[in-house]
């Protein structure tokens, strides 16, 4: 007997919310999560009782602050209706993006009509060596961490390999930091809303050679939220500013940098997830008007751009130098300041990318890309072992 396959449903983002990223000494991670969630719920024009599934993006609140079991914990704070589905999604720095991805699939498959995706991390309560150790646990704890490798260290390894293979210098990386700080200087929600100069970049201390302080995203607190809706639900509820999710892809590969299938300057999970997302969205690279990608370190912006297929290998190192990735350039990248200058509260990062893309497609961004219709986000975990790509279109 032939089984009937139900058609996949269309998915829309109806509401967005974000806190300022930075150091929030007086607030708990729960306070931050509530602030972002309520903004998104209000923006969507619904009440908490309308939500039927809850996806939390969070990396390591258990290690940062001793709280796990986050879906019930945050459920307790949000005034949701009784006994809904909730789960925390964790894929290191891609936790927020994967939470969004799972929520998207829940609606697409017809399991839910209104879903809240909430990314949050509070990191600044711990001292830097402890944060460094916790972040490093996203690498291979058995075979790699005993070397004293750090997260900046992983990306520094990619940098020396990239420079050796393709050329490039710290002067080129500086231009990426300068560009992202320029974008952040116009975004009051950014952790570092200030411009930097080449002199600032070169005067700053080394973190993991050849990466210095201004190559690295900061330690941050923050939260971001989006409300997703099925097409049927949007028809019955007047919602302004809808943005459609037209494609998404996700991929994981071997966690150890030593066990990648290609060389370490190619992000295979990023490439795979983007191939899937573009195929689903039925668009081409040159249809994309604005990109939010995972610049946890300046070099990551380079190899993300190449692995996503926007630049040929060895060529994205010049993108910021040539001004191409500024908000008024030919491929605007990280118009909110990126992880580098907007901040990187791990679990919130992927959801924050979605917030910025929605703002761009609504025409509400601080660095508005003129006439933006299609936006793409790429959220990466660890040293590139996991990645989500989501593509959005203005309705």
């Amino acid at each position, binding site marked *: 007997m032939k089984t009937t396959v139900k058609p996949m449903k269309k998915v829309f983002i109806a509401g967005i919310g974000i806190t300022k990223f930075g150091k929030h000494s007086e607030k708990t991670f729960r306070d931050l999560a509530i602030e972002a969630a309520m903004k998104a719920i209000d923006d969507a024009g619904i009440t908490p009782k309308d939500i039927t599934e809850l996806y939390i993006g969070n990396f390591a609140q258990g290690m940062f602050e001793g709280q796990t079991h986050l879906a019930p914990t945050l459920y307790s704070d949000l005034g949701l209706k009784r006994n809904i589905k909730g789960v925390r999604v964790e894929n290191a720095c891609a936790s927020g993006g994967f939470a969004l991805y799972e929520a998207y699939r829940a609606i697409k498959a017809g399991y839910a009509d209104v879903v809240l995706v909430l990314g949050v991390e509070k990191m600044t309560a711990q001292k830097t060596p402890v944060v460094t150790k916790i972040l490093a646990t996203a690498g291979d704890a058995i*075979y790699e961490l005993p070397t*004293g490798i750090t997260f900046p*260290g992983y990306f520094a390894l990619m940098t020396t390999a990239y420079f050796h293979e393709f050329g490039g210098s710290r002067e080129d990386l500086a231009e990426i930091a300068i560009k992202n700080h320029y974008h952040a200087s116009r975004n009051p929600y950014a952790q570092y809303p200030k411009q930097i100069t080449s002199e600032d970049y070169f005067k700053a201390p080394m973190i993991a050679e050849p990466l210095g302080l201004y190559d690295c995203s900061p330690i941050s607190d923050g939260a971001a939220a989006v409300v997703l809706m099925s097409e049927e639900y949007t028809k019955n509820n007047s919602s302004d500013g809808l943005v459609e999710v037209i494609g998404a892809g996700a991929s994981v590969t071997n966690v150890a940098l030593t066990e990648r299938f290609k060389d370490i300057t190619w992000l295979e999970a990023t490439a795979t997830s983007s191939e899937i997302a573009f195929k689903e969205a039925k668009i081409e690279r040159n249809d994309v008007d604005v990109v939010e990608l995972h610049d946890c370190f300046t070099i990551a912006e380079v190899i993300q751009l190449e692995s996503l297929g926007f630049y040929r290998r060895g060529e994205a190192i010049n993108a910021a130098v040539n001004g191409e990735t500024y908000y008024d350039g030919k491929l605007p990248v990280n118009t909110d300041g990126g992880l580098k200058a907007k901040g990187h509260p791990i679990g919130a990062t992927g959801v924050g990318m979605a917030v910025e893309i929605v703002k761009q497609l609504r025409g509400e961004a601080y660095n508005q890309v003129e006439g933006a219709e299609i936006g793409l986000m790429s959220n990466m975990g660890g040293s590139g072992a996991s990645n989500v790509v989501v593509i959005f279109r203005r309705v």
Partner: protein
Amino acid sequence: MSANTYYKGLKEGKIVAYKCKSCGKISLKSIVCPFCGSRSLEKIEADKVGKVIAYTRIFVAPEYFEDKAPYFVVLVELNNGLRILGQFEGESISVGDEVTFQSIRETPLGVSPVFVKR
């Protein structure tokens, strides 16, 4: 997992690894090949000599390593194709330099090989 075998080997001056009988690649994994998924693996001793694929010098160190900073971490491709991370002891290092496994460094996080220039 084979962490104990790997750490124990390093302490005895050996890099214990596994050769996949299916795809021929060498890894540190004793049960399932991380490259092809085969469960047919043969225990071997890897070469101690290899080339630096990438390097970094860590200035901001994690817990247990703070007193050693700055220190080098290298990604080495050993002559039989196994890629591993280790520390490097020496004045300077470049991609392509030949290094050899010389000693170990042990912390509460585990055991790391230490390479020197050949």
